[in-house]
């Protein structure tokens, strides 16, 4: 009889907190004194993944910096729901300038901090996928290339939600959006390679690039913490489901993020200086249907005559990610 050493805390090991763990091993979100950088009273929709992701990430930055941080926000849902006059939900120094310039504004703030000798004040830029992968991409790439001391966080909900769910370069193929309706011979968004900004960020050779989801807070917080250990340009791409834009139940936000990772459709990894250094393995591999089916933006793939061909292409996409990043444990 071999004795299993206690290496797990089985009861809720993947939960936000765990009374059985030492406080320093629990997540920041479990802390009664967490900063709630994005405060109650914001106007995000019910079950908003972006609101959740933003509080997770910014609270983690606050924790890592001892509350010495400034955030620059691109136009978008996050900005609109957090700061409609006369109320702001932000409890941090925060600036919103334009849709496409968050990275550049952050560069400016970082330059100001440097010149003023406030080395301890760290700078964050954040935006949705539209403000990051599309309109803000030039400024983002410039910030990367100059290796400015900025952590850019993209909250990817895969379309222009603020303007009414139009397609962005982060919208997955076949998805219904207001500008890629599920009509005609090829319904939904066109099949393409998309614009993989984490990979493009890695190509800049910046110190740190990571992907994360709102479904794994431990991983997300560890990545933010790691990101703050570097100076220079850093990028974290957080997958944040949008109940409204995806046609999903508001309570399914985290479940969908979990499924995106567990299917392999959204690979979760981190890279330092352009090289992948960690991969979050799939724990319970799921078929892509389980992820696609609960979302009305993919409803045209199911129903009476399921579009098996398109579903198979999604599965190929997931399998390609699994191979490319080694998302499955070797012994599974």
């Amino acid at each position: 009889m071999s004795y299993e050493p206690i290496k797990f805390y089985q009861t809720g090991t993947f939960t936000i907190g765990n009374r059985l763990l030492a406080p320093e091993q629990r997540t920041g979100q479990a802390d009664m004194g967490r900063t709630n950088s994005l405060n109650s009273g914001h106007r995000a929709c019910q079950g908003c993944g972006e609101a959740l992701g933003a509080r997770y990430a910014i609270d983690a930055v606050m924790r890592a910096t001892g509350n010495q941080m400034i955030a620059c926000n691109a136009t978008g849902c996050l900005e609109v729901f957090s700061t409609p006059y006369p109320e702001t939900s932000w409890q941090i120094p925060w600036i919103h300038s334009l849709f496409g310039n968050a990275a550049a504004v952050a560069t400016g703030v970082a330059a100001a901090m440097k010149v003023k000798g406030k080395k301890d004040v760290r700078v964050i830029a954040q935006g949705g996928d539209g403000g990051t992968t599309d309109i803000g991409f030039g400024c983002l790439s410039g910030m990367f290339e100059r290796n400015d001391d900025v952590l850019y966080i993209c909250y990817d909900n895969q379309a222009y939600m603020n303007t009414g769910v139009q397609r962005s370069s982060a919208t997955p193929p076949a998805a219904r959006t207001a500008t890629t309706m599920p009509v005609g011979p090829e319904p939904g968004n066109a099949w393409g390679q998309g614009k993989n900004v984490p990979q493009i960020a890695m190509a800049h050779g910046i110190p740190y690039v990571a992907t994360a989801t709102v479904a794994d807070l431990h991983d997300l917080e560890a990545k933010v913490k790691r990101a703050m250990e570097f100076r220079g340009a850093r990028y974290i791409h957080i997958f944040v489901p949008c109940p409204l834009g995806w046609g999903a139940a508001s309570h399914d936000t985290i479940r969908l993020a979990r499924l995106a990772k567990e299917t392999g459709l959204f690979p979760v990894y981190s890279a330092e200086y352009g090289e992948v250094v960690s991969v979050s393995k799939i724990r319970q591999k799921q078929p892509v249907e389980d992820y696609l089916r609960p979302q009305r933006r993919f409803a045209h793939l199911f129903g009476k005559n399921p579009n098996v061909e398109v579903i198979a292409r999604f599965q190929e996409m997931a399998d390609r990610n699994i191979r490319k990043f080694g998302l499955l444990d070797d012994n599974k």
Partner: protein
Amino acid sequence: MLKQTEGSHAVAEAVALCRPEVICAYPISPQTHIVEGLGELVKSGELQNCEYTNVESEFAAMSVAIGSSAAGARTYTATASQGLLFMAEAVYNASGLGLPIVMTVANRAIGAPINIWNDHTDTMSQRDCGWIQIFAETNQEAADLHIQAFKLAEELSLPVMVCMDGFILTHAYEQVDMPSQEQVDAFLPPYSPRQSLDPAAPVSIGAMVGPEAFSEVRYLAHAKQMQALDLIPKISAEFKEIFGRDSGGLVRSYLCDDAETIVVALGSVIGTIKDTVDEMRAEGHKIGVLGIHSFRPFPAEAIRKALSKAKHVVVLEKSIAIGVGGVVASNVRLALDGIDSRIYCVVAGLGGRNILRTSLHRVFRQAEAGELEALHFLDLDWDVVNRELERERTQRRSGPIAENILRDVSAVRSSSVG
């Protein structure tokens, strides 16, 4: 200290004397020599405690400036022409947020057709953006205005655009009396921001404002800029006290006291006009010049006062508001509302076209005689224009106008367009 120097370099040195903390640079002719000069000053260590950032576009340049200014750093950038348009969204944003950024615009035409030479179309396109726009007549004034601009911007918490004619000033070598660091320091106190991004006192800057308060926000922006009408002459006077010369101000008159005809203009062309006026005065013409040095805010009262006795007002301007006529002339007309004088708009020097004294003599005399049309294009080649208009009348599809004109021009004479 008197110094024979290029206009751009004089500006670079003047900006450096203002101890900017962040400079963002993106090259566009004819602004390049300014940012190059500053780059060298920072690199060499002559200008210390300054972050010089090479950005990837003018949009980024203004965005970086927004960030650094909001974080409490004295911030400078420069642009021109297409660059100003490319950053336009951020230009409006900077003023909307009340950030005291100082930006040089080395005035240049806007394409298409692409043209790198001087006129005022670029800054005129941004006349309503909420920035203070001041115009330099000479390189000396260009240098001086930058020093005044920082003070003005920071006192009002508003961005200031210092406009100087591309090439004509930026690339011209002239004698400039460069101020000393002590003088500038005495004139310009360190930047104390009205608000800044600070973890010790967090605020949210850049809220979304709906119909319930947007008009008030806009009115306040207007009211704030109108405060500059008092502040600009005050700062100009303070400047004179320390530096001993007239620079800036709202408007400056030349031989206007008894003038029956007054020519109104902005920028370096005032010099040419003054020469013409001197020559005409020698011949007994009662003519003077009114230089507008602050275009935004528009000093309507000062202008009205200066022009109230003139019978003829000639507004000579280097821009055209297509579909209406002159931008400056329209503003002057408003300022003179109710005063019985003839107002002529002369559009001149577009895309770098030389403004010849002989041509000025001609139109000023025509104006004195009441023979000038309300909107006049100086030295327009009517042959070319009429031929093109005729072709358009007869052929529905006549191809791009620019190409046609170039073909005509080169057929008639060798092109002088660079």
